[in-house]
């Protein structure tokens, strides 16, 4: 089940490799040798003259992302990522994106808006982001809060500030008050600056629609640990368990967990939630512990991420031949979240 999440771009490439005809001669053609697309289009609605341009996709990379997360001080969870580019990659990686980061990360300030839109406000915003987002040397991080997105790009991609083939770059990270879930990360490579020798394809043309689809999906998607589960304040173990359970349910569609295993966990989730609701914390804790044991049966080292190591999912798939009921990353995330509940309810030790 590893990286089944992966490669929207591959699907898109298959989808795009046809002539999207609207006007005679218009279309998008994939060159299977170079992996580039030739766009033939009508640049003037009042003319039948055709223009051409070349689109070099940013998906000629072989990325891997490793997520780590640990408890920090005062309930803060520290997230770190390492990104590798496989040796077969033809492009260096120039973008690392995490989506679905719904809540602000620790230290993040709101983007300045009128009337507080001054240079000083922007400087303060930028300084806060620099402090809040850890970036490797030569890279910088940013937040697009409306899109729930955190991303990193190299400061100077044209001066080899990329992750070249066969290299790993560590040091991407931030802190959050939210527990991890499994969400999408996107990587893209160093394509070419896309250009037109005119105004581009006619609006509403089929070729423009297809081109936009191609460009909108010009990245490779991988699963990563992303802060997605808000911890209720004041703390409520039952509510948090419900949220963790809801997050787990999303993994079925992502093929990160076997539905039968999910159902097995569901029963224990319900028992734990009921126990906490009935103010029986010891009973609740036992049920949570039961879930952790079930996870451990699948991945014995599911609780190893607590250390501040940078081992990624690739290295964790140490039992490749074994059929597991839950993806390794998902197992680590779920175990971490359940352990968090136990800690908040009075420690991990058995009563």
């Amino acid at each position, binding site marked *: 089940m590893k990286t089944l999440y992966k490669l929207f771009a591959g699907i898109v490439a298959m989808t795009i490799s046809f002539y999207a005809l609207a006007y005679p001669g218009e279309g998008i053609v994939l060159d299977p040798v170079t992996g580039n697309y030739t766009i033939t289009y009508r640049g003037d609605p009042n003319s039948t003259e055709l223009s051409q341009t*070349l689109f070099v996709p940013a998906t000629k990379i072989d990325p891997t992302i490793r997520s780590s997360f640990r408890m920090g001080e005062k309930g803060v969870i520290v997230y770190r990522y390492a990104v590798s580019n496989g040796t077969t990659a033809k492009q260096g990686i120039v973008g690392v994106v995490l989506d679905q980061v719904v809540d602000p990360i620790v230290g993040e300030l709101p983007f300045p808006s009128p009337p507080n839109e001054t240079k000083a406000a922007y400087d303060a915003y*930028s300084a806060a982001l620099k402090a809040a987002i850890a970036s490797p040397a030569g890279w910088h991080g940013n937040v*697009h809060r409306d899109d729930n997105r955190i991303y990193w790009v190299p*400061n100077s991609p044209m001066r080899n500030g990329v992750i070249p083939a066969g290299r790993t770059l560590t040091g991407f990270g931030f802190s959050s008050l939210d527990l991890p879930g499994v969400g999408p990360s996107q990587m893209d490579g160093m394509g070419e600056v896309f250009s037109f*020798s005119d*105004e581009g394809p006619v609006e509403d043309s089929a070729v423009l629609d297809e081109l936009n689809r191609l460009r909108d999906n010009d990245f490779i998607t991988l699963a990563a640990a992303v802060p997605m589960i808000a911890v209720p304040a004041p703390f409520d173990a039952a509510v948090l368990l419900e949220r963790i359970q809801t997050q787990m349910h999303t993994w079925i569609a992502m093929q990160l967990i076997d539905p039968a295993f999910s159902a097995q966990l569901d029963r224990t989730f319900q028992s734990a939630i009921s126990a906490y609701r009935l103010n029986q914390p010891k009973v609740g804790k036992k049920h949570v512990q039961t879930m952790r044991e079930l996870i451990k049966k699948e991945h014995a080292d599911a609780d190893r991420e607590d250390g501040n190591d940078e081992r990624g999912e690739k290295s964790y798939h140490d039992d490749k031949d074994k059929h597991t009921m839950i993806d390794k990353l998902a197992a680590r995330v779920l175990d971490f979240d359940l352990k968090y509940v136990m800690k908040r309810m009075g420690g991990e030790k058995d009563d």
Partner: protein
Amino acid sequence: MKVFAFRVTGSIPPVLLFIVLCYSVVMITPITIVVSAHASGNLVTPPSLQYSVSVWTHCIPGTIVSYPTPTCSLQNEPISCTASTWAGLAPCVAAVAGGAVYISNYYGNYAGGNPPGYTNVIAAHIGCPDNAQSIGLICTCTDPYVPDSTQTICVTGNNCPVNMSGIPCACNTDYVPDPNGPGCVYQTLTLTIESIYSTKGPFTTLPNGILALKAVVKDQFGLAKAGKQVTLSVDVQSGSGGHDHNENRPKGETCAQLFGVCTLGATDSSGETGFSFRAPAAAGEHTITATCPGCSAANTTVNVKLEGLMPIPASPLYALQDLAGNVIGAIKDKHTDNHYLTGAAIKKLRIFAQAYQETVNPEAKLYLNDASLVWGGLFDVGSTPWKSPHISHGRGKSIDIRAENSGPNNEGAVPTTVFAEVSIEAAKAHSKAALHCAGGQIGTVCNGIPDNRHFHVDF
């Protein structure tokens, strides 16, 4: 000495005349009273001379008689008399014929001052106005006619409720039944232009959009008026939609059908005739005027526009004007207000511009060229007005950013050294940046220094 006396003539004995007189007085009086009451359709007086007057005199052969102009009266009220055509001798045996009725005496003067006899005036009723019949001396309106307010002619309608006539009673021309009571009232037709959902304007439709409308004709009571032919005309307001140029400006069209015939049919039984308004590609304020015979003209406003565009606010992150104070991209007398986007696009622009200023090109501002016009729609560029579109600049989601080029406008341009960074940052903002230029070659069209190079960013 003038003596008044009845004299017996040879053929009309005074006694008979007396009887006739008495009979007349007896009969005319009640008839007159009836006329006064206006209850029987009688006319008080005929509208014109309706009586001829004959004069009898005492006929003495050989005598010379002169007669003054007779004066006539009817029940002591003066009436007109025709001049007597009698002169000289005449038979004294004139009969009361043709319905002639004795009215009163006339006293004539004998030439010698000594009346040789007596003179009687006989008035003969010779006709009634149209739509009246003679009953003795009385003109009586025939049904359904009635005397008018002067009681000299017969008119229709008074037997019907007000503003009605005919048998059976019907509203007169241009009148409609009064829903509040009997009779009819003057018809006032109201023409309106409504949506097919019967909402009133002003309406809004997208550039190149189609709006389904209808013209509705109703009277003052809200009753539908069928069969009215409605005519439409369309105009577009100069200067609207962000276009400062108006020559040969295209405007919307109205048609009865989506495609084909553009002539409207007459209103149906609901008083409606439907039509469509086809908006042009260029935004602008249109006025549709509708007219129909007997109706007051109606007009409505159709704003051809993209809703939700707002001006890009001033910001330290980017420049909307160059150092000389000129709006970047503005062209005098064509488009001088060219910086409108959707709210979402503005947000993305600001984040993108902040990243540019913070990391891509520290301390630099993006120089913002054309975005969209105030109402979106066709942003015509080039030498053919209203034709060549500034592609993708009609929806408030795209903007041009000045990039280093071989042309004259390089102030604030994105330097070539950071073109890649701009593209990458834009992609991270869920946006698409592409270089546009003129004079390049396929594949690397804008990597040299061609003219008019700029980043086109779709948010």
